[in-house]
């Protein structure tokens, strides 16, 4: 563990970041900003995994692998989501959530 910094400090930072992400997910109207809120949420969860690995279970490496898996899933999610946004922009000419309320079939 790190001298002078208890585990709660890291957890408070990541908790506040998580709920800022949820707040942005609810407030925002543009799909890309919603995607950015999701990235904030995933990032705060990553901090939690690594801090638990460092402070509570320093004899294992589980936190590393979970963090890597979360990063890979975030990357693939961002790629698919942005492809969808570009397709929607072609169809509806904007990417606000209110205007997109029908699917193809």
């Amino acid at each position: 563990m790190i001298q002078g910094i208890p585990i709660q400090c890291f957890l408070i930072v990541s908790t506040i970041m998580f709920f800022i992400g949820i707040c942005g997910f609810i407030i925002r109207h543009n799909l890309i900003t919603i995607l950015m809120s999701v990235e904030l949420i995933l990032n705060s969860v990553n901090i939690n995994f690594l801090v638990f690995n460092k402070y509570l279970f320093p004899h294992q490496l589980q936190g590393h692998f979970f963090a890597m898996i979360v990063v890979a899933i975030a990357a693939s999610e961002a790629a698919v989501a942005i492809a969808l946004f570009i397709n929607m922009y072609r169809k509806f000419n904007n990417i606000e959530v209110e205007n997109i309320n029908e699917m193809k079939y």
Partner: protein
Amino acid sequence: MELNQIMFFLLAGLILIFSLLTITSRMILRAAIYLLIVLVATSGLYFMLNFEFIAAIQLTLYAGGIVVLIIFSILLTSHISHKFEQPAVANAFAGILTGILGCGVALWSIMKFPFTPTTQPALEVNMKQIGMHLLNTGNYGYALPFEVISVLLLAAMIAAIVIAKKGN
């Protein structure tokens, strides 16, 4: 106050301020840049924990890959000088209420929980250890998730190309 405490509070302050700015900024490109600053400060936290490999992944994949992808799609789909309207009052109220209530409950339970670390000796984290665990099929081996993630990445890549291509 020691130097590492100053460093931690600097990074934590950067993360909190810029993540608030990310969700409140009315210019979309600025929001993306604030997100980039949040991700770089997070990798600074990982460097403080002595996890160099994960910090490097954070810098290259998140800050280098995902933010560039987001900025690219912003340039394709939005006008740079366009400013968002203020969110509706009911919407903003619901969001802020959810945030504060959830944050309160989570922080209360974090403060009450007694965290007890294990007494076993710490493992030295280096590239060799991570690689041995990641490609190991025995106990505490992560070969199967590694392969599953590679298939997932391939599927996501093909899906992105199929969805975004023009026409049928």
